[in-house]
């Protein structure tokens, strides 16, 4: 039984105290150091005296049994003067054990701050507030989950964020019906606009600097206690391909890397279907010299291209899944064994061609360039319908599947805002931070898609200085 009630006697005044608490939740050191000396050695005649004498700020007198129950479960002490009293003093003595602040694992950046969120909501709010030390940073707390009673904080900057966006988020979180809310990704899946789509509609990040930057743009952040990932919305498709490191580099370099990333994603999705399509139906498309290499590489393969491709794609997926489940030491060996040995051996055995191996490996590598983990999964999934359509109708099938994907993207919304902005509906000004990143002096307006209340960030004329020659 971890719920304990002990009787203590105060030395000075002679009163007895009944102290109740739930042992695992209470920090014994705090209690011994900061609470018991005041309880047992200071003179007092009522609970109010104790409250005023204690150095703990969160202490109050309560007689509501539900409140007492909830607070006991959180790790408060309940002090009463008589055993049958209903009124008592609740004193905060929670045990706070959490991870130390570490570097972000998923969104690591070479330059820039290396702090990442941890599981405790208080620390996360601290990390955020120290980056936006203004009073308009509003935090709305609520509890979600009937069993877990998880604290969820909706954060936005009042006066910049559009009240409609905030209202949508708050309303949807109110309506969540779930029992055990473990992580922010549960919330994403429940409050997303289009639950059945493989595309994520809310961005999740573990960097406080990213959250601070997007809050300044006018977005809304959702923080969940127990989850190091913070959700940001409304978001658009192009944001899933922008890493936060782009903002730390020079804009020309950053734009170049973004374009490479976009190209690699397109390459990753389309290269294997094009391989299947051209080898099955359109071998006249390939120039003669390349055709020679391809035919030589496929000379001994007993399978049609589609089976080769599916075999290799599934092998790579198996490797990835296995590598994710194995403990680190074993995982490295298996990764090398799987990658190199299986690949080389299958070429030498004549099961796959070496050209295809290179293409599939490159495509898999290219799919990992996405900075956000969730969209990387989507891209790997997208490849398979393209391959199937390419098998049916060749290049026409690829174009057809592309139309299907494009239509699906057109249907998606993120918190009610179109998902494909700034492409469609075209918001030309927002393109300054979509595929390329223009320098900070050009970014004087907030994104139009968010419909913020205050679109101007800073005075553009002051930011740019004009100098004549030799002045």
């Amino acid at each position: 039984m971890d719920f304990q009630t002990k009787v203590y006697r105060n030395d000075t005044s002679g009163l007895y105290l009944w102290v109740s608490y739930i042992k695992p939740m209470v920090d014994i050191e705090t209690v011994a150091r900061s609470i018991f000396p005041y309880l047992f050695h200071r003179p007092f005649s009522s609970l109010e005296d104790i409250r005023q004498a204690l150095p703990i700020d969160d202490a109050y007198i309560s007689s509501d049994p539900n409140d007492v129950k909830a607070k006991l479960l959180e790790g408060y002490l309940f002090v009463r003067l008589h055993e049958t009293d209903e009124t008592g003093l609740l004193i905060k003595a929670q045990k706070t054990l959490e991870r130390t602040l570490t570097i972000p694992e998923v969104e690591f950046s070479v330059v820039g701050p290396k702090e990442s969120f941890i599981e405790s909501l208080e620390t996360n709010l601290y990390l955020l507030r120290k980056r936006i030390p203004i009073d308009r940073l509003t935090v709305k707390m609520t509890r979600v989950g009937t069993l877990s009673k998880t604290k969820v904080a909706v954060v936005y900057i009042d006066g910049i964020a559009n009240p409609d966006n905030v209202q949508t988020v708050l309303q949807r979180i109110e309506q969540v019906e779930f029992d055990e809310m473990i992580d922010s990704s549960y919330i994403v899946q429940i409050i997303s606009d289009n639950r059945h789509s493989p595309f994520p509609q809310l961005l999740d990040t573990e960097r406080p600097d990213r959250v601070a930057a997007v809050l300044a743009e006018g977005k809304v952040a959702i923080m969940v206690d127990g989850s190091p990932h913070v959700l940001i919305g409304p978001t658009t498709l192009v944001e899933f391909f922008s890493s936060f490191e782009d903002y730390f580099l020079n804009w020309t370099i950053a734009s170049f890397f973004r374009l490479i990333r976009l190209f690699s994603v397109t390459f990753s999705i389309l290269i294997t279907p094009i391989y299947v399509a051209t080898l099955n139906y359109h071998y006249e498309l390939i120039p003669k010299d390349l055709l020679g290499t391809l035919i030589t590489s496929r000379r001994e393969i007993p399978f049609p291209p589609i089976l080769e491709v599916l075999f290799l794609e599934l092998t790579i997926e198996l490797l990835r899944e296995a590598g994710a489940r194995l403990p680190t030491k074993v995982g490295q060996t298996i990764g090398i064994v799987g990658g190199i040995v299986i690949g080389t051996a299958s070429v030498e055995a004549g099961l796959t061609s070496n050209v295809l191996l290179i293409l599939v490996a490159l495509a898999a590598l290219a799919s990992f360039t996405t900075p956000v983990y969730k969209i990387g999964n989507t891209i790997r999934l997208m490849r398979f319908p393209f391959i199937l359509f390419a098998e049916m109708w060749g290049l026409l099938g690829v174009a057809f599947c592309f139309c299907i994907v494009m239509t699906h993207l057109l249907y998606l919304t993120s918190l009610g805002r179109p998902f494909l902005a700034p492409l469609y509906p075209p918001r030309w000004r927002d393109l300054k931070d979509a595929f390329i990143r223009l320098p900070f002096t050009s970014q004087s307006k907030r994104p139009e898609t968010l419909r913020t209340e205050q679109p101007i960030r800073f005075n553009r004329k002051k930011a740019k200085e004009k100098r004549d020659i030799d002045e």
Partner: protein
Amino acid sequence: MASVAERLQVSPFMTFFVIVSMQIGVGVLGFQRVIAKTAGHDAWISVLLAGASSHLILIVLYWLLQQADGDFLLLHQRLFGRWVGGALSSLLALYFAAMAFVVLRTYIEVIQVWMFPDLKTWEFSLAFLFLCLYITVGGFRVVVGIYFFCLIIPSYLLFTFWFVLDYTDFYQLLPILDHPPSTIVKAAKQMTLTMLGYETILLFYPFIKRGNQSAKWAHAALLTTTLFYALLTVLTLAYFSEKQLQRQIWPTLTMWKMVELPFIERFEYIGIANWLLIILPNVCLGLWCSSRICKQLFPVRQKTALLVIAAICFFSTLLIHDRKEVDFVNTILNRVGFYFLYIWIPCLAGITYIVKKVRGNV
């Protein structure tokens, strides 16, 4: 009836994309032969004439829309009464549905000749119509999104005509205007099938925010298409000799054979695959317009009407078997479109004007 919720409307700039994309359809692949047969190397003048006339018709269309407060079907009803007006509107619905199915069938024929001779018509038609249903069920905003992307993404095909320039001889265009004007006008009439598409503005006008400001974008769209077609005609006439041109059913596709890239040998496959993106919005808007008219005339939901019309289109594509029949339906659609736009619309405008004078307001 004509007011549509603001969240379903699109900005007037989108009118440009809708009209350009609607006009550039499957006709681009083969229109040059038809007009060159009549007007010879002066065919480009016919194109410009057809374009100029389309501007005039668009002005009349906008005037009619403003008289009817954005609801064209209401105009039919007010002028001719409920039954006759309803019959006229249903003919319009039939016309749009026919447009959708003719475009689809012509494209399938192109695929069957150039890419996959044993592609079954019903397979592709079924899949394509399912895709169109998926798009149109999303509403007008999704349809316009498709228009936008399906114009921007294939626009790189314009650069492929650079490769043809090496083989052109612009002196073939001279002497200018040595054909009698009647032939040039006749060729302009034949050109109108390719230029058709902007009559759909009659149906989607209520879906444009600040509709009266969309006129400038619509005219810009017509100008762009006219210039594009004129340039393409000039290029075709300079590349092919007249007799050669008469033997090509799809001169544009033949011109794509000239494209030489280091990693692609036969570019026309890529061109035809991209052409799917160009005709997709045409079929979608045909289905959408047709089902919307049905929704306003009969007590059916737009989704039901859409399904029925898509099914009718599917079965119609199965009925057309070879080149002659495709040609035949294309010619009929051309005639109907021409009579609708160039004869019926001006008559309607005249009647509206008279009625307005007499009654004071339509």
